[in-house]
C-alpha cells in the first residue's frame, strides 16, 4: 500500500490534495529553497526521514528548457558535447508533521564526441564497456526520471521512504547503431529518534537495482568491423573480441548510514554512510554468460556545523568520499561452440578514488530584500587506476580552490538572483605507466587523451542569472540562464542552459 502511495507522489505534475500552503509569500519560499543554507547538512540525500527536519518550504515548480555543451573537455567515452531539451517538475509539501515530495523529468538530446564506447552510463559500468573505433557523433538519447518520497514526524520518532526510477534510452540512426536501455530503481528509507532535546539520531538504508541492455547493430551490407570489450587501461577481453555485439549489465547496490541531526537546523550534523554496488557484465549470445564483475565500496562522511547571529548565518562543511572499485575477469573453456564453462577468475582491474571537500558559507540577511552569500571551498581529489595483467597504472591527485558568490534582490513583484563561481584546479602529481600499449593505437590515444584531460590544470567558472516574477498571489513565472566554462590546458568546454518555468 505504501509503495503505491509513493508512486503517486512521483506523478508530480498533478493538482495536489493537500491544499493549504504555507502562508509566506511565494517569492520568499522560492528564495529559501534555493539558498545554500537549506539542507546544508545534506542529510536528506542519505536518510529520507531527515526531510522532517529540513528547512525547505512547500513549493511546486515546473520548467522546460534547453542546454548546449561544446568543446573538447571530457572523458572521451562520455563525450565532449551535447544538446538537449528538458522538461521538469518538482514538488515539496510540508503540512502538519507530514512531508511529501516528488520529482519528474524528461530529457531528449544528442551527444557528440563519444569515442570508444557504445555503452550507456559509462560512470556506472566502467571499465567493462563495448568499444568500437568509429562512433563519434549523433548519439541520441531520451531519459525519464521519477521520484517520490514521504516522511512523517511524530513526537519522538520520525520515518521516511523515497523511491526513484530513471530510464535511459540511447541510440544512433547511422552505423554503428547502439540500442541501449538502462533502468535504475532506487529505494531509500530511514528513521530518526529524538535523542536529546535538540538532537536526533538516525539510521537509514539504501537499495538499488540496475539493469542495462546494450546492443550494437550494423546495417552496412558489407559487414562490421571489430568490436572489443574493454577491460580498462587499454586492455580488452581477447576471447570475446570480434562480432559479439549483444551484452547486458545487471547490478544491485545496498547501503546503510547513520546520522546525527540538529532538530532546528542549527548545530552539528554528521552522516556516515557505507554502500556497496556490484554488477555483472553478461554476453547475451552465449546463454547469458557473465564474463566480468565489479564490486565497489563507497565510504562517505558529511560533517557540518551551522550557526547564526542576528542577521547573518555561517556554516562549515567537510565532505569526504572513498570509493574502491574492483573488477574481476573470468576465464573460460569452450568444449563446444556457444558453450563456455567458467574455469577461473582473476581480479585484474582496480580504481580507487579518495576525495575531501571543505566549504565555508557566510550568508547575510541584514536587509529583508537583499541577501548575499559567499562560500569559499577547497577540494582534494586523488585517483589510482590499475590493471594487473598486463601491469598498467594511471594515477593523479589534484587540489582545487575557489569561491561561490551570489546575491538576490526582491523588488516589487520580481526576485532577481545572480550567482557566480570560480575554481582553480591544480594537479599535484600524475603518472601514466602503460607498457605494451602503443600511443598511436586507437585504445592508446584514447587513454592518453583522457589522462591529459584529467591531469590538466585550469579554471572552471560558472555564472547564472534568474528572474522570478509574481503573476498572481500564488503563481510566479521564472526565467533562468546559466553559463559554465572549463578552461584547462589544451581542453576547454562551454555549457549554456536556458529554462522558463512556473512556481506555485
Amino acid at each position, binding site marked *: 500500500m505504501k509503495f503505491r502511495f509513493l508512486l503517486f507522489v512521483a506523478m508530480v505534475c498533478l493538482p495536489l490534495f493537500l491544499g493549504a500552503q504555507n502562508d509566506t509569500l511565494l517569492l520568499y519560499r522560492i528564495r529559501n529553497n534555493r539558498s545554500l543554507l537549506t539542507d546544508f547538512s545534506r542529510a536528506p540525500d542519505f536518510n529520507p526521514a531527515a526531510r522532517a527536519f529540513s528547512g525547505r518550504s512547500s513549493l511546486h515548480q515546473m520548467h522546460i528548457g534547453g542546454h548546449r555543451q561544446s568543446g573538447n573537455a571530457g572523458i572521451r567515452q562520455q563525450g565532449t558535447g551535447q544538446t538537449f531539451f528538458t522538461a521538469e517538475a518538482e514538488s515539496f509539501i510540508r503540512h502538519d508533521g507530514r512531508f511529501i515530495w516528488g520529482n519528474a523529468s524528461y530529457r531528449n538530446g544528442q551527444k557528440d564526441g563519444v569515442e570508444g564506447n557504445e555503452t550507456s552510463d559509462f560512470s556506472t559500468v566502467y571499465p567493462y564497456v563495448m568499444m568500437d573505433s568509429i562512433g563519434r557523433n549523433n548519439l541520441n538519447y531520451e531519459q525519464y526520471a521519477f521520484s517520490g518520497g514521504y516522511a512523517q514526524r511524530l513526537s519522538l520518532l520520525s520515518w521516511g521512504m523515497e523511491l526513484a526510477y530513471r530510464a535511459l534510452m540511447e541510440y544512433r540512426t547511422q552505423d554503428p547503431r547502439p540500442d541501449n536501455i538502462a533502468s535504475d530503481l532506487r529505494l531509500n528509507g530511514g528513521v530518526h529518534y529524538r535523542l536529546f532535546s535538540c538532537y536526533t539520531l538516525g539510521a537509514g538504508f539504501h537499495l538499488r537495482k540496475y539493469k542495462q541492455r546494450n546492443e550494437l547493430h550494423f546495417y552496412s551490407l558489407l559487414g562490421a*568491423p*571489430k568490436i572489443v570489450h574493454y577491460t580498462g587501461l587499454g586492455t580488452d577481453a581477447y576471447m570475446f573480441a570480434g562480432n559479439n555485439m549483444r551484452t547486458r549489465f545487471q547490478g544491485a547496490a545496498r547501503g546503510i548510514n547513520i546520522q546525527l541531526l540538529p532538530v532546528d537546523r542549527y548545530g552539528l550534523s554528521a552522516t*556516515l554512510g557505507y554502500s556497496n554496488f556490484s554488477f555483472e557484465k553478461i554476453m547475451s549470445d552465449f*546463454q547469458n554468460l557473465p564474463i566480468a564483475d565489479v564490486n565497489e565500496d563507497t565510504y562517505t562522511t558529511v560533517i557540518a556545523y551551522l550557526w547564526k547571529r542576528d542577521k547573518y548565518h555561517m556554516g562549515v562543511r567537510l565532505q569526504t568520499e572513498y570509493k574502491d572499485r574492483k573488477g574481476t575477469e573470468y576465464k573460460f573453456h*569452450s568444449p563446444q*561452440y556457444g558453450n563456455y564453462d567458467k*574455469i577461473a577468475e*582473476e581480479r585484474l582491474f582496480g580504481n580507487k578514488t579518495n576525495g575531501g571537500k571543505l566549504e565555508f558559507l557566510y550568508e547575510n540577511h541584514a536587509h529583508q530584500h537583499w541577501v548575499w552569500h559567499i562560500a569559499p571551498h577547497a577540494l582534494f581529489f586523488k585517483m589510482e587506476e590499475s590493471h594487473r595483467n598486463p601491469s598498467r597504472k594511471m594515477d593523479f591527485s589534484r587540489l582545487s580552490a575557489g569561491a561561490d558568490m551570489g546575491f538576490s534582490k526582491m523588488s516589487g513583484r520580481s526576485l532577481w538572483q545572480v550567482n557566480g563561481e570560480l575554481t582553480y584546479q591544480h594537479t599535484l602529481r600524475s603518472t601514466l605507466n602503460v607498457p605494451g600499449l602503443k600511443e598511436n593505437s586507437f585504445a592508446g590515444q584514447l587513454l592518453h587523451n583522457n589522462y591529459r584531460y584529467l591531469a590538466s590544470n585550469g579554471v572552471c567558472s560558472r555564472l547564472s542569472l534568474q528572474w522570478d516574477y509574481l503573476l498572481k498571489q500564488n503563481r510566479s513565472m521564472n526565467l533562468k540562464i546559466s553559463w559554465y566554462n572549463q578552461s584547462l590546458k589544451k581542453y576547454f568546454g562551454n555549457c549554456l542552459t536556458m529554462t522558463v518555468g512556473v512556481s506555485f
Partner: protein
Amino acid sequence: MTKKYLFLFLMMMVSIGFNACQDDNDELRTTILSLTVQSPEEMTDFTLSELQAVFTERNTGEKTLSDPFTGTLMILLPEGTYDIAVQGKISYWINGKRQTGEVKASKESNVVLGEKAVLSLPLMLVIDHTDFLISEIFFTGTQTPEKKQYNGDKYMVIYNNSDEVLYADGLVIGQTDFLTVTKHAYRPDIMAEAVGVDCLIQIPGTGKEYPVDPGKYLVIADNAIDHREYNPQSIDLNKADFEWYSTSLGGEVDNTDVPNMFNLYDRMVMHNRGFKSFILARIPVENEQYLKDYRYHYDYDFVFNGITYPMDGDCYKVPNEWVVDAVNLSVESEFQWIVTSPALDMGWTSCGKVDKDPQRYGKSVRRKVLATNPDGTQKLQDTNNSSVDFIPDATPSLMENK
C-alpha cells in the same frame, strides 16, 4: 560537553574510514604444467631432439614459447585454457636404414588449473608426399563499385612443387563439412583418421591426359568467364584450366571451351567468409565403390541461446593417407579448432580479421615462396602448417597481371 565528545567520535570514524581498505597484493594464479609427448606408435628405436612447444592462451591471446626439451617439459603458466603445438625432429631406424624426419603434436583447448597440471600429447610423424600442392585459394569473391558482394569469380590454384612431371588426372578437391569456427562434440569423432568433406570435385581424365611440369600450375575456377564485364573490380577467368559446374545451381555459366570438373559428390560452393578448409586427395578405389563405402553419418547436440538442438548430418570421409595436401581456413576473432588432423595441417590462414569483415573482399591466401630456381620457377614452402606456409590477406595472383 556532549557535543564535543560527539564531534571527536565522528572525527575518529572519519579517519578510520579513510584507511579502511588495504591493498590486496595477491600474485596472479599460475600452474606448473608437466607436458609429456608420446612417441609415434610404430617407432621402437628412435631419438627425439629439438622439441619445442608453443602455448596459446585462449582467454588472453598470449603466446608462450617453451625452452627446447626432450620427452617431458615442466613449465610455469598462468591459469587458463591453452592450445598446445609441439614440433621437433626424430631420428629413427627402419629396415636397417637411418632416417630423419619431423614430428608434430597439437591439441586445442586444454584446461590448465590448480597448483599442478599434467598433460600428454601423442606425436605424429610428418609424411611428405610428392604431389600437387594447393598454392592459392581465392574464396572471398569481390566487391562491385556499388558496394555489393560478387560471388562468381572464386578459384583455386594447384601447383606442382616437385621436380618431376605430375599428372592431374583423378585429383580430387574437397571442402570440409565442419567449420573452423564452430566446434562440436561430433559422434563418432573420426578426425584423427579421416577428413569429413561436404563436396568432392574431381579432375577428369584417364590417367595421363593432364600433365603439369615442375613449377607450373592449374587454375580451377567457379565460372571460367571474364567477370570484368559484370564487375569491373573482378578478374578475367577465361583462361582457367578447369571450372566446376552443376546445372542445379542458379547463376552458373558453362564455358564450353574449359573442361568441367567431375562432381563426385555434391556441389562446390566455397564458404565466402573462410570458415571451411580444403583438401587435395587421390582416391585409390573406383568412384562407385568410394561413394558406397565412405559415407560418414554423425550426430551432435547443439545448445544455443537456451535451447538444445540435437542435430545430425551426413557427409563423406577421406582417409588421411589419401590426402595429399590440406589447408585450414578461419578468422582470428572466431577461430575454435582446425577441422583436419594436425598431421595434415597444424595451423590455419585467413582473409579478414573478424566475421563478415568488409576488408576481406578481393583478397586470397597464397603459399609463400621458399626459393626461386635458376630456370625462373619457384619452390613453395610446405611445412604442413598453414599459419606459417601461407600469406593471409594477399593480393590474388590473377589480379596482379591486370
